[in-house]
């Protein structure tokens, strides 16, 4: 298993993973739009141990996070948004989703100056809510009624990225001191 930033050539298999796992699907072009607008923010988990059948086999994507920056934030504060996240059920309990999210969040702050990250989740999806709230520290902001196509409500969740911002500030300071000391 390999966690790395998304490349254009991953897209057909990301779309495949999404179609296999989740009911909310998108055209390939929408993935392309993410890859070309915020290339630093989306990550994949790849199964690198599968033997190749032909020289053209692509590594199998077993998990991905598709993320973006909110283009016109209503509150005027730059922030990220998770468009889609999923991990194949055959590859759970390895902490893949958490690891994908942490990479993406770091890049949101570094490259785009994000202050927080938001997402929607089905109110019935206990497992996902557990991950977001308990493992990653998201807070539930509000409930959006009938957000999903089948009429289910969504929790609108939010995570402040202040600790990452602070960590980066500290690192920069330390570097400057080091440079200045030379």
């Amino acid at each position, binding site marked *: 298993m390999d966690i790395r930033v998304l490349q254009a050539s991953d897209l057909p298999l990301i779309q495949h993973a999404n179609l296999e796992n989740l009911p909310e699907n*998108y055209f390939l072009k929408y993935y392309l*739009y993410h890859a070309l607008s915020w290339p630093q923010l989306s990550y994949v988990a790849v199964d690198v141990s599968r033997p190749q059948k032909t020289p053209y086999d692509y590594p199998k994507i077993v998990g991905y996070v598709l993320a973006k920056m909110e283009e016109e934030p209503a509150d005027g504060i730059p922030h990220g948004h998770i468009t889609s996240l999923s991990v194949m059920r055959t590859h759970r309990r390895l902490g893949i989703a958490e690891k994908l999210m942490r990479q993406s969040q770091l890049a949101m702050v570094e490259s785009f100056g994000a202050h927080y990250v938001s997402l929607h989740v089905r109110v019935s999806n206990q497992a996902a809510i557990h991950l977001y709230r308990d493992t990653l520290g998201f807070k539930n902001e509000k409930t959006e009624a009938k957000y*999903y196509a089948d009429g289910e409500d969504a929790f609108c969740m939010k995570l402040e990225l202040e600790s990452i911002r602070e960590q980066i500030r500290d690192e920069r300071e330390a570097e400057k001191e080091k440079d200045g000391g030379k």
Partner: protein
Amino acid sequence: TTGDVEEDVPATAAKSAEDRKAAAALAALDDTPRGDEEVKNVDQEAARKAMNKLGGGAKQGEAKKDLKRVKVDAGDVTLLVDQLELTKTKATELLKQHDGDVVKAMRAFIAPRF
């Protein structure tokens, strides 16, 4: 299954709001900005001068010009079109690349390219 949770993570994104966002984002991709974007930080005069120094547009490949001089037999072109299922342009080009030698051209064309 309890305790199975750590990360059954199907997430997010949906119909109404999200779908509209996706559709809008894709529709706006090819928007052409009307009028020029803001130009603040460029020394316009310097830019113009620098550009003039760049010289002309594309260079034509040298090799291509040489190929023009190679004479090819029309019958050979027809044969390549038929045998290799190529367009006339491609067949002519292939033939020229092999000095008009039709056997050489065919052999080169089918040689494994890896």
